[in-house]
Each structure stands twice: as structure tokens, then as C-alpha cells.
């Protein structure tokens, strides 16, 4: 209209939205607080509880071992506002009446949060330098574990954006997503599986455990990128985002 050329493509729309979200993360002090807490906690778990320096092993196994637990609290903190804040401010009405699809908005927002998490994860590189300085670790294994950790975070994040769309209250969103993510850990956490093994047949334990992120993350930690594990994490992401789209559709329809 009026001679304006429309240069929008799905990718450019997603990128425009992701850019705005990322801008939002990095202009708010919360982002920096988050990154500092993330780095402090990874350090704490790795060096104090994981006792990296006393083990005399040149590996980051114990660094990554705690990631499912660390993300349990930190990832919902990133994801809780993604849609809840749009709903609270009413900007969701603005966003979804733009000439974009709901999917583009969902993917753009998710990608921004995932990239932010990626940046936080990248900033743990001093620990890689440390083990390389102290010993001779297998950097291939470390790389695999980083990939796995990033996928794990993406899975949690998709769950968090889903719970974020359910409410306009960030706290509610946070709690819901912690509960769901906790289930995803506990279902395959050895102390828990060992416990329920006593009561139910092995096959059921295996089925429940197969929903868990822990066994799927294990391979990455040991340096194996198994396609099935990759598919598992992407399934969680697709499930989370798909459910988000249904929630938003129902929200708009007023059900």
C-alpha cells in the first residue's frame, strides 16, 4: 500500500522479534544478574561440590553433571516472562495483530531466550581453559557436553515458554515450569529409579525413565552425540512450542 514494498519473510519476522527480545534481555539488569548467578553457581557446583580440583581428573564431567539441576531453577527464570509479560502489558494484542503468524512470534521469542541461555553457557569458558591448563582433557567430549547442555536448556526453555503462555503472572509460570522440569529430571534420576525399581517391573521404570532428560543428557556428557538423544531434546522443544501455540490460540478464542 502507498508504494511501500513489503520485505517481510518468515525468517525476517522471526529475526525482528528475536532481536527485540534479546534487546530486552540485555537492556535489563536482570539479565546480568542472571548471568552472574549462573556463573557463580556453576563454579560452586563444579569446584566446591564437584571438587574438580581434588579429583585429579582432567574432565568436566562434574561440571556438566549438575546442569539439569542448575537449569531447573535458572531456565524457568529466563522463560517465565516470555509470554506472561506480553499478556500482562497487553502487548500480545499488538504483536499478534501485526502481519506475522503466531508461529513466527513463538519461534522468535523462543530463539531469543535460547540464544541468551547460550551466551550464559558460553561465558563458562574459563572452566574449559582451567582444565586445559591443569591437565589434558578430551576437548571433543567437552564440546559434546556443551552441545548436550545447550539442548537440555532448550528443552527446559520450551517448557517454560509454554507455562509462560498459560498465565499473566510470572511467578505462577515459574513454579509450573519448575514442577514440570523437576519431573523430567526425577523420572530418570538414578536414586529415584533405583527406589521405584523395588516396586514396579523394570519395563515400567524404563518407560518412565525414557521421558527423563537425565539419561539423554548422559551420552553427551560422555562425549557421545546419539541421534536419538538429539531427537529427544528437539521433541521436547517442538512439543513445548506446539503446546504454546495451542494455548495462545485458545486464549485468543476466549475459551
Amino acid at each position: 500500500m502507498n508504494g511501500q514494498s513489503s520485505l517481510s519473510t518468515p525468517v525476517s519476522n522471526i529475526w525482528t522479534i528475536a532481536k527485540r527480545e534479546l534487546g530486552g534481555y540485555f537492556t535489563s539488569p536482570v539479565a546480568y544478574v542472571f548471568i552472574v548467578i549462573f556463573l557463580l553457581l556453576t563454579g560452586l557446583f563444579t569446584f566446591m561440590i564437584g571438587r574438580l580440583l581434588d579429583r585429579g581428573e582432567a574432565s568436566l564431567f562434574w561440571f556438566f553433571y549438575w546442569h539439569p539441576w542448575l537449569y531447573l531453577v535458572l531456565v524457568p527464570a529466563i522463560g517465565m516472562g516470555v509470554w506472561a509479560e506480553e499478556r500482562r502489558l497487553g502487548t500480545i494484542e499488538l504483536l499478534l495483530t501485526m502481519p506475522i503468524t503466531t508461529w513466527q512470534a513463538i519461534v522468535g521469542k523462543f530463539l531469543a531466550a535460547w540464544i541468551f541461555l547460550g551466551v550464559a553457557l558460553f561465558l563458562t569458558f574459563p572452566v574449559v581453559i582451567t582444565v586445559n591448563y591443569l591437565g589434558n582433557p578430551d576437548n571433543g567430549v567437552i564440546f559434546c557436553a556443551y552441545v548436550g547442555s545447550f539442548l537440555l536448556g532448550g528443552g527446559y526453555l520450551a517448557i517454560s515458554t509454554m507455562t509462560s503462555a498459560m498465565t499473566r503472572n510470572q511467578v505462577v509460570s515459574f513454579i509450573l515450569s519448575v514442577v514440570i522440569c523437576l519431573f523430567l529430571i526425577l523420572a530418570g534420576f538414578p536414586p529415584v529409579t533405583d527406589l521405584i525399581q523395588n516396586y514396579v517391573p523394570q519395563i515400567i521404570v524404563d518407560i518412565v525413565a525414557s521421558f527423563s532428560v537425565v539419561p539423554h543428557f548422559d551420552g553427551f556428557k560422555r562425549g557421545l552425540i546419539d541421534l536419538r538423544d538429539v531427537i529427544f531434546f528437539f521433541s521436547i522443544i517442538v512439543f513445548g512450542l506446539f503446546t504454546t501455540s495451542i494455548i495462545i490460540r485458545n486464549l485468543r478464542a476466549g475459551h
Partner: protein
Amino acid sequence: MIQVKNLAKSFGPKRAVDGVTFNVEVGEVLGFLGPNGAGKSTTMRMITGFIPPTEGTVVIGGHDILNNPIEAKKLIGYLPENAPAYADMTVYGFLNFVAELRGLRGEAKKKAVSRVIEMCFLETVVHQSIDTLSKGFRHRTCFAQSIIHDPPVLVLDEPTDGLDPNQKHEVRTLIKRMGEKKAIIFSTHILEEVEAACTRAIIIDRGKIVANGTPEELKRMSELAGTVILRVRDVPAEIVKEKISELPCAKRAAVISQNDGAAACVRVYPRPNIADGELARAVGALATQMQWRVEELHTDEGRLDEVFRSITLPDTVKKESEK
């Protein structure tokens, strides 16, 4: 440009909008009136594609909002109720973001952003973050976002809400000016706004259109429309009333005020099918004949607020008395 046909929306058992039909063409400014909760915002949200209708269709410039939402939305600029905007962004960042979503790039984007900044008087706050803005500025920022792509269709939900009288006047003037080249729908509670800016008005009550016409037509629905007000000095009001009631074209007369400060004021109601101005001429002639000292003589055009109340109130009152 905007074709709304049998539009309906149910929220559970409640029918928020119930069979609304109207068209808006380029060059028209449609005022959307109605009490709170009448379904104005819901209708606008359906027109802009935010919520899907339960029944009916909305077609924007030939594109159905359900079947071809992207093309339809490209033609619309929308100011939602309460003017939402991303609190953490600066005005400039926000407008750039919207311009990009609207498909503007490079030089065109720059131009569009600076054009709306100028049009909406945002120069002084361009680099301020939106959560630090006063309500008026925030409102105008959101208004600026709605016209950034110079859309042929504008949907404005209470565009003057929360503005001071000067800003209200500016926005009204802007709407009226833009209305010459666009199809505009705007909702409001302020009836004088309808007279000031609209070419046509719709009154909606409990989801249904109860009146549709130009502001003049609507005003004529008022029972005061066509009545003549006469104010005279030094004559008792009762005598004036009595004399006037005898006029052939007068149905009845009523005293508005007695001789307070020595002026009597009488309202004369016309008989049906009396031509415009005839009653006033007759009253004037009578006053001359009687040698009354006339201070005021005019035909009442009717008042929108009175029409609005008479259309939308009776049932609400009834409902309350039932409780």
C-alpha cells in the same frame, strides 16, 4: 474497505457481540459508541484479527481476516485499548521494531519513523524508555505505531483516552484529517468527539447495533431535536407558554425556567411533519406580534448524549429494577 457481516462472539454462554453488520469506505470516519461492556473492544479485536469470531466474517480490502490474515493485517493500523507498548524499549526502538514487522527497511523505515514522531509530537521523548513516559506520551507512542505504515484502514480503540483536552483536540484533528484518505473506525465514550471527527456513528448496546447514521441523523432521533427555545424578558413564562401552545405547528410547550432574572425560557415541541425552521419562524412571528423582548430564539438540533441515553439506558434500568 472494511466489511463486517453478521459478526458474533460468544464467551461461554455470554454473547458479547451479536450479529453486527456494517461497512466502512475510504473517506469515512466511523465513531463506535456504546456503554462499557457493550462489545466495542471485542468487535475491534475481531476486525483486527486478534480474536476469531464465533460467527460472521470480516473482510479488509478484499482479504478475509480468517482466511488471509497476513494480507488483511497489512492493511490495518491498530491502536488497542489502553495503548499497550513494550515498557523496556525506547520510543525510537519501539517504533523501529514495529516498522520492521510492517516490512519497512532502510531508508523507508527511517522516513516512516521520523514521520510519525513528528506527527504525534514525540520529538522530546524519542530516546526515553516507554515505562518512564506520561500516559499522554505513551498513548501517542502507541498511536504512532498504528500509522507507521500509512495503512488504508485504521482501527482505534479509545484513541483519546487519558489525554488532556489539548491532546484530545490534536488527536481528533489528526483523525479527521487522516479520515479523508483512509477508512477509520474509532471507539469513544466522548460524544462530542463523534460530532467533531466522525462522518458516521454506530451505537452498540449489549452486542447489537442499536443506531447507525451520521451524527446529525442520530441527533435528530432525540426527542429534543426540532424543538424551539425561546427566551423573552418581562413576560410571565405561563403567558408565553399559553400563547405559543395555540400556534398551529406547535404540539406543546414547556417552561424551562420561570422569570428568574426577569427572563422566561420556554421550549416548544413541534407537531410531526413540520418542515425545518417553520416552527421557529412561527414562534418568531408570534413574538413580534406580541412585542415580546426576545433574548434568544433557536432550534435545538438534538443532543447525542440524550439519544445515547435514551437508546442504551432503559433496559439497563429495567434490569436493575428486576434484581
